[in-house]
């Protein structure tokens, strides 16, 4: 057992480095080296012995290269030690969770050495903090890291698992947000599957996985007729309509495409879906029209602050609508649509009034100039009449 507190000998002071200088080169910038850890904390041995044989002699706890199982224990020595990890603010349940994961179970129950353990994802000598963008488990890098195995067709076929998940994910709404738009908040593999306790969410927990981020959609979904369906693997909750790894930005079109998979096109359920689709599409169209209307008014030189404020209220209602549609109740959507339509009417009316007022200003110039011309002619006539009188 290595003693975590014994961190006095830093790598440069360790005798191991005199022979393994190349390896120290890999270690020296790692988070572990920066915290004063050295070779023997993981590999055992006596770093104070100048002689290589004495340093690795029996009784020094020397283990050489740890195998996969040993490795998880080695990491766990410190990372499961609550008192020791406390100052660093990191969790200490990683090893426990790993044992519950598909990876951990295969390793420990089936002695399957092909599965991932700590170093497969975090690296070994050059372990970086998770918050370091260069770390293989920094959000942007997670999908690639998982893909080292999960995109390996030969390896995956042995487990009957698909190897195209990364390809699908890469082009999904989540994938583009994470990898192209660099949005660290976008869902990656671990967001749904967990990291140390990685398992696919069960069919009945899909809504919980999605609901971690999509809170309102989840709670509305739980109010729908679908929520109570028995978890018989036929209905995949969120994934039933949206898919999973290749999820695309949702559009109302989904109602036409997805309901039909379970409901006939004459069934009342299908018609409800169609109605809601129509409601949402109308709302989106209405919003878009007024957005254009405001933009063109602005380019005509009209002040549109009031209308823009109303438009953003419309937007709020539209967002509310897109979450509420998951209840699959047309009656819940109708009042929102009504509000959106009446706001659109108001925007239209106020802009029309502003346009009319500008038209009136131009028209007012006609009587103004008629008046001016009359006055000017009258004054000039009077001037000439006086001239002649003199």
């Amino acid at each position, binding site marked *: 057992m290595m003693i975590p507190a014994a961190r006095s000998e830093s790598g440069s002071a360790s005798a191991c480095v005199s022979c393994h200088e190349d390896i120290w080169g890999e270690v020296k910038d790692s988070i572990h080296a920066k915290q004063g850890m050295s070779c023997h904390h993981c590999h055992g041995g006596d770093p104070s012995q100048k002689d290589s044989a004495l340093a690795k002699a029996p009784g020094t706890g020397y283990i050489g290269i740890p195998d996969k199982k040993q490795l998880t224990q080695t990491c766990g020595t410190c990372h499961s030690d609550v008192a020791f990890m406390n100052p660093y603010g990191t969790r200490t349940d990683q090893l426990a969770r790993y044992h519950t994961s598909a990876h951990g179970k295969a390793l420990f129950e089936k002695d399957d050495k092909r599965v991932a353990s700590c170093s497969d994802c975090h690296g070994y000598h050059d372990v970086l903090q998770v918050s370091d963008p260069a770390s293989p488990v920094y959000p942007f890098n997670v999908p690639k890291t998982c893909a080292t195995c999960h995109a390996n067709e030969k390896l995956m076929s042995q487990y009957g698992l698909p190897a195209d998940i990364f390809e699908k994910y890469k082009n999904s709404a989540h994938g583009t947000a994470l990898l192209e738009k660099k949005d660290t908040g976008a869902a990656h593999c671990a967001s749904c599957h967990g990291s140390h306790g990685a398992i696919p969410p069960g069919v009945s927990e899909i809504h919980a996985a999605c609901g971690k981020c999509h809170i309102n959609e989840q709670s509305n979904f739980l109010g729908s007729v679908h929520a109570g369906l028995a978890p018989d693997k036929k209905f995949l909750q969120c994934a039933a309509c949206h898919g999973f790894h290749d999820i695309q930005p949702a559009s109302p079109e989904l109602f036409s495409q997805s309901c039909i998979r379970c409901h006939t096109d004459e069934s009342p359920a299908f018609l409800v879906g169609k109605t809601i689709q129509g409601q949402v599409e109308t709302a989106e169209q209405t919003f878009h029209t007024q957005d254009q209307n405001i933009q063109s008014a602005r380019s005509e030189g009209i*002040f549109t602050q009031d209308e823009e404020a109303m438009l953003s209220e419309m937007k709020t209602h539209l967002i509310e609508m897109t979450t509420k549609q998951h209840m699959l109740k047309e009656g819940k959507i109708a009042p929102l649509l009504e509000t959106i339509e009446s706001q659109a009417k108001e925007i239209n009316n106020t802009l029309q009034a502003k346009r009319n007022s500008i038209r009136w*200003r131009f028209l007012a110039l006609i009587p103004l100039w008629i008046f001016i011309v009359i*006055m000017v002619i009258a004054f*000039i006539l009077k*001037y000439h009449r006086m001239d002649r009188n003199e």
Partner: protein
Amino acid sequence: MNLKKTIGSWITDRFDVEKIREPINYQLKKPLPPHTGWFHTLGSLSLFLFISQVLTGILLLIYYRPTIREAFESVQFIMTKPYLGWLYRQVHAWGGQLMIIIVFLHMLRTFITGSFKKPREITWISGVILFLTTLGFGFTGYLLPWNQLAYWATTVGTEIPAAIPWVGDWLKTFLRGGPNVGGETLSRFFVIHVIILPWAVFFLIAMHLFLVRFQGIATLDPVGEEKDIGKKGIPFFPHHLLKEGVVFFILLGVLVTLAIVFPFELGEKADPMQTPHAIKPEWYFLPMYQVLKFAEKMWGLLIISLAPLFLFLWPFLDKSRPRNPLKRPLSMTFFVLVLLSLLIFGLMGYFSEKNVKIFNTDYHIDIYGMPHKILPNATTEPTHEK
């Protein structure tokens, strides 16, 4: 009729009307020189514009707020909410522009007809002060809407006096009320624009008009050889007043038409963190601004401050006797040269830092107003040598 009589006797019972009737009649009937024509209405047009600015300015003051937090928004409010707010804001903005033009033309008129010569030197000097205060109205008023253009033009404008040796920095800080253009500058400009300048101009105009009436409108006769106008004169009332009425109506129409057809945009709110490309002052400062670009800062300043000095001193420098412009070839040549240089520098300033097309060739006009051909495959704008 009875009512008129009653009021009339009510007044004559209390005041010795006969005594004032005489001078009033004299003032009204006093004949103007025979050459008095349309160009002699420019002075009253200036007065009309000043009154219009005061009235629309009072209306603006009802809603305007001179703080950096509210100024822009309050102008926006005026342009959208109050009844006819858009109209009086636009009439005030256009009125300011027209006033500068009309006062300048009036100055040219009195120069061309030699009216500034003895005995009207003081009328001229009060006029020069009026012209400078009119420009002051423009400079201070421009900042008040607190939009990007105004903010940066004022930043550049208040930088100019900083080049004066010894007192420059103090002067800049005095104008700005701090190291940068900010809330203090706005308060200062506001007070100057709505309190100090209007009252100064009010008293200056009173003095100016008193002098004009007291000395009478100048004839075209050479200094010292003025003949009595006699029967050839044009009575001020009603003859000249009718002419003023005609131009007054036309100016009113032009003002309202400009306000409606070419409204001034408010633009973006001032943002001290974002400097726009090619900051320029208002058009009437462009010639001066362009001259400053060429000369070493201090020399440029000297050159442009010579202009008002020359204006002030002109009646004492040019003591020749003829007033008729045709008999003053030297002064008129000098006058044309000055106008031309104002025009040329103004145009250079206007087109500087712009791309223009002349005879199908694209040119980039650099900051000094010099054109450079844009090569078809050039990726960047040509850099200015100098």
